[in-house]
């Protein structure tokens, strides 16, 4: 045990500091630090390119609803709105399904089913997003237009959210694609969280006469809720930054939408659709400023999620 600790923590308790060790240590420190440096460099460069837009537009950039390269007026509000709405739909649809998958895999599934099913769900995360986008254009879009959206409309059509004629390439379709894309992330991390719940919790609930569902609800879910919440936020992080699949399904319209059956645009899809065309420094700056906003939002979301999940999993292990 002692020898191993020395081997692993070799930087401080150095037993034999050969030149090779020193070079290796220096190199790996350099590589590790360069990642941090890269993040700083990216941020600084993005800021420099965006400066023109930040100077001209100021804070109005966040609230202006018009993106018009003819009059060179650029506002980010429709895209921030589009991002929030599509991610919201994705969470609303994705979290319950993911939670169901996680509960099944950790609490209910027989062992012979558990391993292949876990593998398949995680495989969904490996499908490139452009493939989801293609599927969205050719399969999901028409299905939404012909079956799902009219169906939703016949039940909830009185809400302004579901009015207008379903077109299949709209905010709702993009939200559904995102929901499917974040399911693997949320269910895998939630499953970890559920598995980290100590068995003593389950045993205690069972010994009090709780049914299986009551055990899951009272002892397991409640115990793991911080982890599940963190998992959902991680999923949100993916939904917010997803570009390709959204660009291909959302209908690419740079304006506010009242109904989910209208086309829209997210920050990521706007950048993807327009970066090639930016012909003036102001337009380029505005696009890069969008990128900065997206990066900031993603960083905050991911840091928050990792904090939650990390703390929860540590607590779970400690209790065991």
């Amino acid at each position, binding site marked *: *045990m*002692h*020898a*191993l600790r020395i*081997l692993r923590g070799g930087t401080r308790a150095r037993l034999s500091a050969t030149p090779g060790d020193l070079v290796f240590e220096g190199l790996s420190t350099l590589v590790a630090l360069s990642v941090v440096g890269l993040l700083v460099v990216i941020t600084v460069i993005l800021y420099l390119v965006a400066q023109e837009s930040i100077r001209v537009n100021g804070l109005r950039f966040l609230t202006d609803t*018009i*993106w*018009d*390269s*003819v*009059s060179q007026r650029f506002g980010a509000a429709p895209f921030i709105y589009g991002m929030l709405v599509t991610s919201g739909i994705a969470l609303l649809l994705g979290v319950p399904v993911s939670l169901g998958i996680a509960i099944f895999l950790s609490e209910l599934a027989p062992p012979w089913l558990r391993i292949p099913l876990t593998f398949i769900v995680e495989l969904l995360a490996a499908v490139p997003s452009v493939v989801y986008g293609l599927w969205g*254009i*050719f399969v999901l*879009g*028409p299905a939404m*237009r012909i079956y799902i959206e009219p169906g939703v409309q016949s039940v909830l059509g009185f809400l302004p959210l579901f009015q207008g*004629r379903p*077109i*299949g*390439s709209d905010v709702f379709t993009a939200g559904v694609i995102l929901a499917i894309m974040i399911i693997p992330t949320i269910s895998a991390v939630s499953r970890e969280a559920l598995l980290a719940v100590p068995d003593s919790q389950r045993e205690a609930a069972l010994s009090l006469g709780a049914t299986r569902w009551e055990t899951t609800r009272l002892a397991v879910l409640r115990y793991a809720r911080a982890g599940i919440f963190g998992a959902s936020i991680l999923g949100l992080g993916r939904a917010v930054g997803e570009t390709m699949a959204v*660009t291909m399904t959302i*209908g*690419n*319209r*740079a*304006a506010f939408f009242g109904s989910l059956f209208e*086309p829209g*645009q997210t920050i990521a899809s706007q950048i993807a*659709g*327009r970066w*090639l*065309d*930016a*012909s003036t420094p102001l337009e380029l700056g505005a696009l890069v400023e969008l990128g900065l906003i997206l990066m900031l939002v993603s960083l905050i979301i991911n840091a928050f999620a990792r904090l939650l999940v990390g703390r929860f999993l540590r607590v779970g292990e400690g209790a065991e």
Partner: protein
Amino acid sequence: MATTEEMEKLQRGRSGRGRLPVVVAVIVIAVILIAVAAYAGWLFPSGGGKAKVTLNGAGATFPCPLITKWSSEYANMTKSTTIPGPQVTVNYNCVGSGAGVSQITRRTVDFAGSDAPLSPSERAAAPNLLHIPETIGAVTAAYNVAELSTGLKLTGFTLAEIFRGTITQWNSPNISADNVGVTLPARPIQVVHRSDSSGTTFVFTSYLHLVNPGWTASLVGKAPNWPVGIGAQGNAGVAGKIQTTPDSIGYVELAYTVANNMKVAQLKNHDGQWVSPSLAATAAAAAALASPPPPDGDWSSVSILDAPGATSYPIASLTYLLVYKELNVLTAMDGTKAQSFVNFLWWAIHGGQDLSEPLTFPRLTTGLVTLNEGAIRSITFNGQTLNPT
């Protein structure tokens, strides 16, 4: 226990026995890489016997099918040893006119394609760019309505109202007035437009502005702030979106509507005639262009929209190659490349025109060919004129 195991593992690794598979893998990968490199000609660039020159262009998707065809034909032609000079590969990246102009302005490509002439401010940002009209295009109003066959009659005014969102139903009085005897469905119109910055959009919105004062100048441009509609990327993207969206209408370049066999509207031209988009109708519109400016002049007001003539199709436009008059402003340029470049341009406006009609692009008029000859002759490299052949 764990300690001794880990130590043993470490020592085994160091003794070299465990490294053999790694060494083998590295050798195999290296051999494969070298083989690929040799095959692709990275190691011996002159392996084919003929030197190679690559020209890079980017821009409009409107002439994309034609330029792509030119590039493959020209590479085949110049590969032959009977033709002097290097083998010329032309890479044309169909990214949209807006992107093309911004790339030629930043000098990251050798030439750009644009359906819109340079605006005065764009000209100021990239001085000494020549406009070389390389072909003529027509923008069609293509639709996808199950009950309707091709040839629905639409005036430019009605078209503008549809794209403004003031006419929202297929059976609106404006449309039915021009289509007596046609049963129009009582369903909403789905408008499809370009989501990227596009010369096709510039041509189309310029036309709408010309024929309908309600389509204000603020809605004219390569990427205006559309009042209604779904956005799609590129001519091909709009064509695809129309085909997959029932009751939709959008604007697509003629070559794309023909290739996709789409239903297109007849438009009322300047002389009050209903005209279907076709090669002949597009050429008729181009023939009406009276006196074009010099190649290095201001082309921003040149237009063959709503051209006079009984057979002229109203939404026609020249599409341009933008080339620097002095090629040494491009860092990746040298004498050989410059010579190959002007040779290619020369061929494009002469021999290349034979390839136009099968791809649904009209031939250049003789007036434009003469104008272009002067433009290409005026191109220099380090002040030296290049004699195109």
